């Protein structure tokens, strides 16, 4: 029970005192039980007043403080800091809001406003009277980070973390690193190819002894929480010795393999064998056998002794303080017949087109026919009017223009027709749009509800648009190749999101806590997100978020101790009859069943508990109390508020 409580009532320069009789509030509060000092102040938050308050608390040896002023969102932290500076514990401070809750909404009723203000401040005093000094919870942490996904974002984040001295586990689900970027030729605004960029990052990853790289690694389970995650990774074998200097024989092994399947690296426009590598300098530079395709005929083993079909799947466990998720995106797959996809044979996706340009030499041909007129259809799978993908995929306008511009470096006489929904080459990328226009690329624009049409007429592929830039005239182009500019969609394969329970936004991508202020953190403490798993991003934006997420993840593991907010739920083991109601109610999986002596009781993991209070009302024996919001404190407040003056 606090006996020397200080109450400070703020005028807020008239914002409060114009409608609330602050002197009356002060006088009434002065008579409250335990109140030792009751004062008014013009601006409680002003620097000079803060100093006076510190001096006042010290001089009067106060043991608890209430400031009645604006919303706690604005200044609770300010006055908690004041009490701490005066030598008190910050949990002996209670904030009373008499501006947003009183003076502003009741400016028409000064008497009523004053009464309400008195009640609110009294109830705060009732709470602070029972307040106790509490200290933050400290936990031991693992000084290591798991980065999921070795695409450009994951690799960049891993390198950044490793340079800060943290142990990094970099896990890639595929057998080859580099993600999407590895596919691409010269990247927009640079003279570098995606492959070159990936090479640079890979070299850094391999050279850094703080980084352990796993390929073919899939996360299968995760336990623990911020500071202490235990993650199981399942490692798929390559069936080929890791360091394979026997290149000639590997080549032979690939030649003799009788299985041919569509090559995912070229998005199905070419075939590969069951034993393959994506391209000669792919990283790691070792071939792999895909066992889903392999018939186990054994032909490869006969020509190459580096092949070992007996390799087994293994599982490793890593202990980390934070998990950085950079799992990227899937490209939207158009539905059958969407803009002629799969219905007309010269309709392909932008990814396929980019690979076609990369692997073609001399003349650009599709199905043996020379290509001159290329029609690009934008916003396929993005900004859908009828579908669910309402968002813009951000990278595609620029990627398409870059591809079209670069294609002319390699192949002459290509004509480019862009069927857009409005160009979005934002920022510096505008110059590429300008360049393309100048070079004679033709841009059309349609509304979302009146889309471009792709038709097959007498063996010719016709693209039609009601062009809003030309008085909505119906214009048509006979295209040799139609390129569907497909947007980004969330990964369909989403076990990581399910295991870590990362919430998703309306767009089904992983969601950050706050779009602007906390853009790389998730509500799962210790789990950060980077790159396009969070939503469509171009390379620059992915790298920015990766660097930002690496710093955030680092903040969880930078020291061997981590302090967490002590406002958590607490179980009274004597009352608890473990019934699992709280475990079910907890949205953060913070409550588990443990043995205590001879009986089962609930145990709350304080590093996971957010103090939300969901478990409190469901407990049939009232065995749970929320620290700083105990039944006694809240009931005392209600008693004051429910009783008239």
């Amino acid at each position, binding site marked *: 029970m606090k006996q020397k409580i200080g109450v400070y009532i703020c005028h807020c320069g008239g914002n409060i005192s114009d409608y609330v009789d602050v002197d009356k509030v002060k006088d009434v509060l002065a008579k409250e039980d335990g109140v030792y000092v009751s004062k008014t102040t013009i601006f409680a938050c002003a620097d000079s007043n803060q100093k006076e308050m510190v001096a006042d608390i010290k001089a009067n040896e106060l043991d608890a403080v209430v400031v009645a002023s604006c919303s706690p969102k604005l200044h609770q932290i300010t006055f908690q800091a004041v009490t701490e500076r005066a030598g008190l514990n910050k949990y002996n401070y209670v904030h009373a809001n008499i501006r947003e809750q009183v003076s502003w909404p009741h400016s028409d009723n000064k008497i009523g406003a004053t009464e309400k203000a008195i009640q609110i401040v009294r109830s705060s005093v009732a709470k602070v009277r029972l307040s106790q000094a509490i200290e933050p919870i400290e936990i031991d942490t693992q000084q290591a980070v798991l980065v999921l996904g070795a695409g450009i974002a994951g690799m960049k984040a891993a390198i950044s973390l490793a340079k800060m001295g943290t142990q990094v586990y970099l896990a890639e689900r595929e057998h080859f690193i580099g993600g999407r970027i590895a596919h691409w030729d010269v990247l927009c605004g640079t003279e570098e190819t995606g492959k070159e960029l990936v090479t640079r990052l890979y070299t850094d990853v391999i050279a850094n002894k703080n980084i352990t790289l796993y390929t073919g690694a899939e996360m299968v389970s995760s336990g623990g929480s911020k500071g202490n995650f235990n993650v199981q990774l399942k490692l798929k074998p390559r069936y080929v010795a890791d360091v394979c200097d026997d290149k000639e024989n590997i080549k032979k092994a690939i030649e003799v393999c009788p299985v041919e399947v569509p090559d995912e690296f070229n998005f199905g426009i070419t075939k590969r064998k069951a034993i393959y590598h994506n391209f000669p300098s792919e990283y790691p530079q070792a071939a792999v056998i895909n066992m889903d395709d392999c018939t186990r005929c054994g032909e490869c083993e006969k020509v190459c002794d580096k092949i070992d079909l007996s390799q087994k799947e293994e599982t490793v466990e890593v202990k980390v303080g934070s998990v950085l998720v950079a799992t990227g995106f899937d490209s939207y797959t158009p539905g059958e017949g969407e803009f002629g996809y799969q219905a007309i044979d010269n309709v392909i996706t932008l990814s396929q087109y980019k690979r076609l340009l990369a692997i073609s030499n001399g003349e650009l041909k599709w199905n043996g026919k020379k290509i001159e007129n290329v029609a690009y259809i934008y916003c396929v799978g993005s900004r859908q009017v009828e579908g669910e993908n309402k968002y813009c995929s951000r990278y595609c306008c620029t990627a398409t223009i870059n591809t079209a511009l670069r294609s002319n470096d390699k192949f002459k006489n290509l004509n480019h027709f862009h069927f857009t929904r409005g160009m979005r080459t934002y920022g510096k990328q505008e110059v590429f749009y300008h360049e393309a226009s100048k070079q004679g690329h033709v841009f059309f624009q349609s509304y979302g509800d009146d889309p471009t049409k792709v038709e097959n007429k007498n063996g010719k592929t016709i693209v039609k648009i009601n062009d809003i830039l030309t008085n909505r005239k119906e*214009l048509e*182009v006979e295209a040799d190749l139609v390129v569907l500019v497909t947007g980004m969609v969330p990964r369909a394969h989403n076990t990581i999101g399910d295991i870590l329970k990362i919430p998703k936004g309306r767009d089904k991508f992983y969601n950050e806590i706050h779009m602007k202020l906390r853009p790389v953190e998730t509500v799962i403490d210790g789990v950060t997100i980077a790159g396009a798993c969070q939503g469509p991003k171009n390379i620059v934006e992915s790298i920015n978020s990766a660097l930002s997420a690496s710093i955030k993840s680092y903040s969880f593991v930078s020291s061997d101790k981590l302090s967490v907010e002590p406002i958590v739920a607490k179980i009274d083991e004597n009352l608890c009859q473990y019934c699992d109601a709280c475990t079910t109610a907890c949205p953060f999986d913070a409550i588990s069943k443990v043995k205590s002596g001879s009986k089962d009781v609930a145990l709350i993991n304080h590093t996971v508990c957010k103090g939300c209070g969901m478990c409190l009302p469901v407990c049939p024996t009232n065995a749970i109390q929320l620290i700083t919001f105990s039944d006694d404190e809240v009931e005392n407040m209600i008693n004051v508020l429910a009783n008239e003056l």
Partner: protein
Amino acid sequence: MAKVDLKFGKKLKKFGAIDFNACYNCGTCTAVCALSDEKDSFPREMVRFSVTGLSEDVKGSLKPWLCYYCGECTTYCPQEAKPGELMMSLRRYATSRYDWTGLSGLLYKNLLAYIISFLLVIAGVIGAYLSDTFTTEEWFHYGHYFEMLAIVGVFLLILTPNIFRMWLYSVQSKKKGFKLKHYFSAFGELLVHMFTQKRTLKCDDDAKNKIWWFEHFILVFGYLALLFTTVVLDWFATEVPFIIYMGYVFSGIIFIVTFDFVIRRIRKRSEKSTFSHPSDWFFVIWLFLMGVSAFAVRLLVDTGLILDNFWVYLFHVIILVQWALIIVPFGKWTHFLYRSFAMYFDKVNKLNAA
């Protein structure tokens, strides 16, 4: 339904269009244009037709002629797509489409053809001189004869059918039926615009523009007056002092104003004189040479030196024939007719639509 045609854009470049592909359809050009209004909105629409290759829409439109090249569209274009110069090249293109002989198009697109045709005229005139067919007297006589014949011939055989074709494309193809009364009530437009070019004054109100309009206005007046003086009043042969003085004044106006116009095109200080197609140079320079040579011929006649300096007359005849047989029917001269007929036809279209 219209097919997109990239060849049209390439063709327009030969007619003098530049950089119009850079257009990103913001519409600034149309917004700043002092002559464009809701009913006749340009130049953006014309830029778009050019980019997408809708040549038939361009052919049937009078909008290229409603533009008087104030140049603000080009000044303010954020993409530097030079819409003003595109409109200029569309006028050249339209001219080539109206011309049934196809020679306009050939000459606009092909500088070499222009030069060859000029050389042929020079060879013809000098050949005639060297063949000794005509006496000096006869040269003067037949020179005058040629002028009259050329005017009638060019008008009947080339310009009248071409105006008819312009009418077919821009008026008749748009509206079924024919209301004579609209042609009567709109006729004033033709005369007003032919002789005043007053639409130029609607360009943004600055003094430089007014000076340009005035120069152009007196040039047209001087040109028509000199034509009348030489053809009807037979200036070179007349003894009437008043007519002689008039001829000096009118030819003087022509070469002074065209000299200034040539200087403007060299200095490139305004948008409209920044870009010069060969046909622009030929037009102003030949008009200048015509004024100067006519002035000189009459001066030599008056001073009695013409026989000793007969080459001056021959030079004048060469310029005259090149002018009358090449520049007038197939070159830039035609804008005198097409501009005023466009205003006339536009009015008729509006009356038809009302």
